[in-house]
């Protein structure tokens, strides 16, 4: 019974965070760019969340007649489902975790690699050249950055000797992994931004070149699904960064463990928004070149050095 409550609670909290991020992101962007942002509905404009979601629900849910109907409908569902599945392994506190799998990190990587289907299929099913271009870009970008994301976490797996996320958090009781694996943190975060295709790496949707990229043809709640999927992805990468590199729920005892977890996660969500507010978008070939020619050698070097040091310490 307790298990069901945890699942429902996690789902409730996540969906509310994703909706709340609509407001948070727009307010923070406005602050950093010296604008006002939404400030009409409710105190500090917080009812913009309600207005935006109501607007999405009441919009006509249009399926273009030239689109491939079933694939068009499935694509937005895949992104939300795959991101929500990833949260299964996130330990919010020692007791609040849906399932502490012994292949935890691999499960996270598998689910995040499935997210690419929503972009590819959504772009293909729209039957529109801009969507297809966005889909092709998205596929190559996400396949490439998935590799670095996986490899950057393997240093931590070597040091901990486990794929379980609770073991990884417990291994950070003395020193957070950010101090042992700083290179991995940078690469993981860059890959995370690319995987969630957020600015500055929102090349699959690049509105100045491709209208809205892979979701040009989507409207109403189907577009809303891509939207929610993106915010859930931001939350997921922030939560993973907090868990893997910043000790997850660990922290001084005056706050409960889950509070520490949420504080750390929100710090990274804010960093995501700051990136969006401040950085320009690279060109598509620059993104791929940086990935394969800089990040891949770096992450392999990091892995080799970590392995050598781990062997040397153990004797």
């Amino acid at each position, binding site marked *: 019974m307790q298990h069901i409550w945890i699942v429902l609670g996690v789902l409730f909290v996540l969906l509310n965070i994703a909706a709340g991020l609509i407001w948070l992101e727009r307010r923070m962007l406005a602050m950093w760019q010296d604008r006002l942002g939404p400030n009409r509905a409710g105190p500090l404009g917080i009812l913009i969340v309600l207005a935006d979601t109501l607007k999405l629900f009441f919009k006509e849910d249009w399926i273009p007649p030239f689109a491939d109907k079933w694939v068009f409908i499935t694509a937005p569902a895949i992104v939300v489902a795959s991101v929500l599945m990833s949260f299964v392994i996130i330990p919010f506190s020692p007791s609040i975790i849906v399932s502490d799998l012994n292949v935890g990190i691999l499960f996270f990587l598998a689910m995040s690699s499935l997210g690419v289907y929503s972009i*590819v299929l959504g772009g293909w099913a729209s039957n529109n050249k801009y969507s*297809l271009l966005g889909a092709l870009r998205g*596929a190559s970008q996400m396949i490439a950055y998935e590799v670095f994301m996986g490899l950057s976490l393997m240093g931590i797996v070597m040091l901990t000797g486990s794929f379980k996320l609770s073991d990884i958090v417990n291994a950070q009781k003395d020193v957070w992994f950010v101090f042992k694996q700083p290179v991995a943190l940078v690469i993981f975060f860059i890959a995370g931004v690319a995987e969630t295709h957020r600015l500055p790496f929102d090349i699959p949707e690049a509105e100045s070149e491709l209208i809205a990229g892979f979701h040009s043809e989507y409207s109403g709640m189907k577009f809303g699904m891509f939207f929610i999927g993106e915010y859930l992805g931001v939350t997921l990468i922030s939560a993973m960064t907090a868990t893997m590199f910043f000790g997850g729920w660990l922290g001084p005892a005056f706050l409960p463990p889950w509070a520490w977890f949420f504080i750390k996660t929100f710090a990274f969500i804010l960093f995501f928004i700051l990136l969006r507010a401040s950085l320009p978008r690279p060109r598509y070939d620059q993104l791929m070149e940086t990935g394969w020619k800089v990040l891949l050698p770096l992450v392999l070097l990091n892995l080799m050095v970590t392995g050598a040091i781990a062997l040397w310490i153990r004797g």
Partner: protein
Amino acid sequence: MGTAQILFWSLTALALISAIMVLVSKNPVYSVLWLIVVFFAISGHYILLNAQFLAIVNLIVYAGAIMVLFLFVIMLMNLNTETEPQKSIWMKFFGVVAGGLLLSFFISFVISSADLKGKSAQLKEGEIGLIKTLGKALFNDYVIPFEIASILFLSAMVGAVVIGKKD
């Protein structure tokens, strides 16, 4: 019939039906999508056999990477029913004969094997599919074949780059 049995049979049905759908779909993109469903069903079987590592790696490698590349290529080729080359009737005939022979070979193998009789799921039994045992087996007993396979992959990659280069 326990939960494991129900899961086993529904996964089996799912795998077989989607495998047939891979073959009969007219649109090649649909074939790829059904093939992804097959991989999911097979991953489910791996989990029933207590091989979590194999299940997840099957998802990461096949469903997550290789099938995306398949989709990528098929979308670029822009195949549709009008441009699809028609195969001759003889090709279809011999295809059915060869496939049927292979199928009957496998069925006879499964029927004659005493080990496989009446077994479906082995929850919490056997440890070969867990990361620790698999890693130890790969890097102790099978280290030379493992390294040779990795060199094979590396040379295949280098070969692809050489062929793909213009001059």
